[in-house]
């Protein structure tokens, strides 16, 4: 690690306060969780994460076997094999790397393998763009992975540790994708608290899978083929595991809070309770949104923010409860999906509200594509639009592009 480390306390049992970027914080989290196998392929902006981790391996600071594969598809293939062999495994990727893994994302979740993947999210080509947005992670939203979003390096670190517990929970047994925004988090050096190694070790515990390829005396067959009778049954079962992840994510977030003072739920509401107008988003733009809320509140605009931490499984009931009684709600998507009536997050929020009997006016925005910054005035504009539709003024276009329209 090249970043300056500021030690708050020299005792190994106390947290260290550090100045690190998001990528390095997650590299540190991987080191502390000490996976048996890591397989990865370098891609911008994930590269600095894997470089930092490779150095840890080279310096003997982890026991991990690092497999430097020839592609992301191979990285996921190696992890599926290693995980089925009873190893605790992790990877990291970005953008096109995740897209290349897409086929295997379904294999990993369908085989119920608790693989942890750190995502430094990036746009998808074309045009080629190496910068941050959520196109990659949203493209994998239906692949059966639990998906966590971080707002800053601290959350990325905390999520990385909790991801191991969520994935391996016997009620879940699903792969987990822990995302941080490319560059704006991955490359931003910020203050963060890093747990002592011992505490991480006791928090994540040991991994004891029920079946393993290396259990030679009890030969198991992994990845069999299903006929029309069994396929639907296995998918039905997988659906149930995903539903159970909701409770497990909450419980693990609570337990983590008891250990560290930083509790995590499924979502985070900011000045939302008495708000009439609400913005919903995920990731690093939450700070700009909070600033916009504060400014509008000062001007007596009843604005509030809902930041989602968990996107898959979608915490529909919690979202509906948090947004109950709002007059107008805008969902802000950091990815463009084409041909739908709004962004992916927007559609999820709409369905959550509709199935829970709430019917505020809804607006859909796309923001921050390919590394564009999102500033408070952008979010203020969203609230102005919400005010307008709440007053029943003429409807706005189904899809708006923040800062472009």
């Amino acid at each position, binding site marked *: 690690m090249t970043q300056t480390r500021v030690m708050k306390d020299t005792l190994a049992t106390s947290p260290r306060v550090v100045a690190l970027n998001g990528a390095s914080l997650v590299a540190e989290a991987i080191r502390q969780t000490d996976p048996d196998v890591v397989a990865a392929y370098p891609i911008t902006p994930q590269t600095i994460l894997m470089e930092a981790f490779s150095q840890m391996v080279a310096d003997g600071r982890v026991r991990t*076997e690092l*497999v430097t594969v020839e592609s992301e598809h191979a990285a996921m293939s190696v992890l599926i094999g290693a995980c089925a062999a*009873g190893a605790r495994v992790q990877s990291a990727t970005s953008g096109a790397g995740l897209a290349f893994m897409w086929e*295997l994302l379904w294999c990993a979740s369908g085989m119920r393998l608790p693989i942890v993947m750190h995502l430094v999210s990036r746009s998808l080509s074309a045009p080629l763009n190496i910068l941050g947005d959520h196109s990659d992670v949203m493209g994998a939203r239906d692949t059966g992975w639990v998906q966590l979003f971080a707002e800053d390096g601290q959350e990325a670190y905390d999520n990385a540790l909790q991801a191991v517990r969520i994935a391996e929970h016997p009620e879940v047994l699903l792969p987990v994708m822990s995302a941080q925004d490319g560059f704006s988090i991955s490359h931003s050096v910020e203050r963060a608290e890093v747990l002592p190694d011992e505490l991480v070790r006791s928090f994540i515990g040991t991994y004891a899978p029920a079946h393993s390829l290396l259990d030679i005396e009890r*030969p198991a067959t992994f*990845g*069999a083929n299903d006929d029309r009778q069994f396929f639907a049954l296995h998918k039905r079962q997988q659906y149930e595991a995903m539903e159970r992840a909701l409770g497990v994510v909450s419980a693990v977030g609570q337990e983590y809070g008891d250990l560290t003072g930083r509790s995590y739920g499924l979502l985070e509401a900011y000045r939302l309770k008495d708000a009439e107008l609400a913005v919903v988003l995920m990731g690093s733009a939450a700070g700009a949104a909070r600033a916009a809320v504060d400014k509008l509140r000062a001007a007596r605009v009843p604005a509030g923010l809902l930041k989602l931490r968990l996107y898959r499984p979608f915490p529909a009931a919690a979202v509906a409860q948090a947004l109950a009684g709002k007059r107008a709600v805008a969902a802000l998507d950091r990815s463009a999906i084409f041909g739908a009536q709004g962004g992916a997050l927007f559609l999820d929020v709409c369905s959550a509200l509709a199935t829970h009997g709430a019917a505020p006016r809804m607006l859909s925005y796309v923001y921050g594509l390919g590394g564009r910054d999102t500033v408070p005035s952008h979010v203020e504009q969203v609230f102005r639009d919400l005010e307008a539709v709440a007053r029943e003024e003429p409807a706005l276009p189904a899809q708006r592009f923040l800062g472009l329209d």
Partner: protein
Amino acid sequence: MPLNLRELSAKEDLLAPGHRLCAGCTESIVVRQVLLAIQEPVVVACATGCLEIGTSPFPFTSWRVPWIHVAFENAAAVISGVETAQRSLVRQGKLPDRPVRFLAFGGDGATYDIGLQWLSGALERGHHFTYICLNNEAYMNTGIQRSSATPRGGWTTTSPVGKVIPGKREPRKDITAIMAAHNIPYVAQATPHGWKDLMTKVRKAVAVDGPSFINVLSPCTRGWRHELDEGIELSKLAVDTCIWPLFEVESGVWKLSHRPSRKKPILEWIKSQGRFSHLLRPENQHLVEELQVEVDHDWEKLLRRCDAGGPL
């Protein structure tokens, strides 16, 4: 245990019957021979294909060894993950240190075509595993489509015999030489007819310190259009016509395993299978002649490579 059938017959068959491979399929014969040859515990990864589909229709499995299938193209990467897990867990004291052999099976589609990158990567990384290609010279699992292992002139459903094109126009890829060019410790070609040759090669392959590759010709009744009982016989004819020479490359040294006492003409090979029947028409006679020239050329090249590596 010596490689003697009576001795071997005392060993448990690690591939159970009740699989759904076609009657007369040679793939399961090869798999049985491979598993009989290996004396240590094995873990198998299988590419998508006939073998995978036929041996693992849930809730049934024919495998009596740990087995995994993930996708079509990545069996080599998957087994390299299993092997890495073993190395990691043993080194950390989480698993007892015992010799385990890691095998990957893939058809020619999985090996020559869609999985070449994954295989090449795993060989370069030096994982300790043996990759066995069950080469039936086309995509048989999906119903006989051409692969880069399909011989020139061969009929398949995507290289059909038509009014203007007489089957596949391109010669097959020499994947065995490509594997040897990775400078891995052991590469070989074999057939199920030569069970002793195959089993000897398998034992050498799993014993080397690093990756190894064996390309096994596996006749297919459906795709090659031959009778159900002819698979073994044809795998011998392939060797006798020098269509499929038996050789090995040990630490870079090429060695011929068998020199046919009389090299049979390619016409015998062509006559033996329906996939070549159009080549017997008078207008295609020049193709037969060209194929003979190709086989002769490849055979001479192999002999030169083997001579350069030392006497037989």
